[in-house]
């Protein structure tokens, strides 16, 4: 068996989220160096504020200002900061109950070492130099021995409210497709197409995924199929995808390679798009250095009879 294939896979997306009235006020407040909480019916102040009471589920909306100073309620020392975390030097994760609040906010505390941190210690907000209306407008907390500052009693109404955030997410993987798909990709490197036959129903799956979805059993017997095949069905693509240098319209088809019991996907070329038809006989076209067929073109054979491929639609 060939060596199992591996490749880096990055999943990255700028999640764009709209904010409700409470979150909008809180994050706008951070931009303006004001920390807001929300009052519950029983008189508690939740910081960070939420739109619904976590106990009663009642609507919440009465915003009140709390102090940028507070008390650590618990902490954990992070000696190896990871990507995306608030500080790139060792720091403490902290839950901080700000003065005037009844609940705690999660953030980072900039401290020289774990001996400088304890539950009950006093801290204050260190504001980010550039603020845009996000939780990261608080750069971190820092130790603070001073008095509790006076607050102006802001009501949460600002000019130019922040109504949304963009929260970039990125996860890195090293993807391995497993035994069956590795063997398939490996065979393509010598321009061969290899499927796997189900030991129970004897269907040949291309590309193979290691299992027969009908019988629920492992497949392992490798079977070379193609290179020629039959168009079983197709569609005409009229919208150009970004970063794709194929001219529209083009035809995207299901192609049953000879010997396969499942059609795979491919683009049809070498024939005007409006002349592609079910039953068209095609063969793969490889480009120099290509790791899979670039497209399929007509072989010139007579069309396949419908009866020969109707089970593969």
């Amino acid at each position, binding site marked *: 068996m060939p060596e*199992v294939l*591996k490749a880096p896979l990055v999943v990255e997306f700028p*999640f764009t*989220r709209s904010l409700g009235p409470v*979150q909008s006020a809180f994050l706008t407040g951070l931009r303006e160096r004001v920390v807001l909480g929300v009052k519950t019916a029983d008189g508690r102040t*939740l*910081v*960070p504020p*939420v739109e619904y009471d*976590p*106990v009663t589920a009642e609507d919440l909306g009465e915003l009140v200002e709390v102090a940028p100073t507070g008390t650590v*309620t*618990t*902490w*954990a*020392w*992070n*000696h190896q900061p*990871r*990507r995306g*975390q*608030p500080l790139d030097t060792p720091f403490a*994760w902290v*839950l901080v*109950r700000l003065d005037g609040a009844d*609940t*705690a*906010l*999660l*953030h*980072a505390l900039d401290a020289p070492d*774990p001996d400088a941190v304890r*539950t009950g210690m006093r801290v204050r907000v260190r504001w980010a130099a550039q603020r845009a209306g*996000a*939780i*990261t407008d608080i750069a971190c907390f820092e130790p603070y021995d001073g008095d509790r500052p006076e607050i102006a009693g802001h009501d949460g109404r600002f000019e130019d409210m922040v109504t949304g*955030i963009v*929260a970039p*997410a990125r*996860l*890195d*993987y090293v*993807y*391995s*497709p*497993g*035994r*069956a*798909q*590795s063997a398939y990709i490996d065979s393509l490197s010598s321009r061969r197409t290899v499927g796997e036959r189900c030991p129970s129903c004897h269907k040949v799956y291309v590309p193979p*995924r*290691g*299992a*027969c*979805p*009908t*019988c*629920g*059993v*492992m497949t392992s017997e490798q079977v070379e199929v193609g290179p020629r095949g039959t168009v079983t069905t197709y569609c005409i693509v009229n919208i150009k995808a970004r970063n794709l240098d194929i001219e529209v319209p083009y035809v995207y088809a299901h192609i049953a390679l000879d010997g396969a019991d499942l059609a795979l996907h491919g683009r049809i070329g070498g024939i005007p798009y409006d002349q592609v038809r079910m039953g068209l006989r095609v063969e793969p076209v490889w480009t120099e250095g290509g790791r899979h067929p670039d497209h399929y073109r007509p072989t010139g054979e007579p069309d396949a009879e419908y009866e020969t491929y109707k089970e593969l639609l």
Partner: protein
Amino acid sequence: MPPIRDIAVVAFAQSDHLRTTDELSEVEMLIPVLHAVLDQTGLKTSDIGFTCSGSTDYLAGRAFSFTMALDGVGAWPPISESHVEMDGAWALYEAWTKLLTGDADTALVYGYGKSSPGSVRDVLTRQLDPYYVAPLWPDSVALAALQAQALIDAGETDEPALAGVASRSRASAVTNSHAQLRGSVDQGGYLVRPLRVGDCPPVSDGAAAVILAAGERARELCERPAWIRGIDHRIEAHGLGVRDLTDSPSTRLAAERAGAFERPVDTAELHTPFTSQEVVLRKALRLGEEVRVNPSGGALAANPIMAAGLIRIGEAAARVHRGESDRALAHATSGPCLQQNLVAVLEGDPR
């Protein structure tokens, strides 16, 4: 209201849990487990009335990844199937309700996770509040460490006691051939203080499956079915700073609704990836020293994400099947710091 039908776990199977399984796709990892659990009952996939699975796209890095795994259950011609983006324990809960309705007499439930392609600590940040918390990227170990420190501050545990939980778990796992960490494991240095390497679970690839059956069908399929006497799941506020991290009222409530406090249990399989979480759960579930906790080694010995909770139910049921337990409690968790908790009570017929 008592359940209208008796439903039991009649079979349980799991993979060996390993740090990496590069040579296997998810379905390739899953199929042997599905076959093993079916073989225990003599059922074929076509005999199963309902199929439900738990997994997450964030481990695979690919959308709708569970549909590929479905190839392993023989999903054609179409079967009655569902999926939860949670631990398989919650898939089991869904299957249990399906059987209660009478729509099916048997159910196949599975959960699986390949953690090795990505970084679990980072992947799990994606389940956090996306407005106030996720942008700070607090990883799963960091959040568990906050909970551990809260327990230490409250005087409920200390680092040597946590190390004791770790060593007992890995010692118990010696008899579990599927476990990843067995025997003596060094506590190591801090990952995020106060949690050391030994307080944290291994990163695991693995899968598990159980079969549920109702009434007489269960007796036909299993010599000593593990009857689900009660099962319930509850959730806490998502704001970490709203919660008392030293307690788990959601576990307590779920246990109460599942009937866990009506009579003592002899075994508890607790889903505690971190040593400190066992401290919280022992208190919430009022487990005394006489209760055998995590004889399988628990999630500290093998932690395939999205299967580890289902495995707790399976391990508890298997002890009932073997006659090693008469009344067992199984717990599954999901989310940071024991946010969501499921409790099931399993009993064997009187002997």
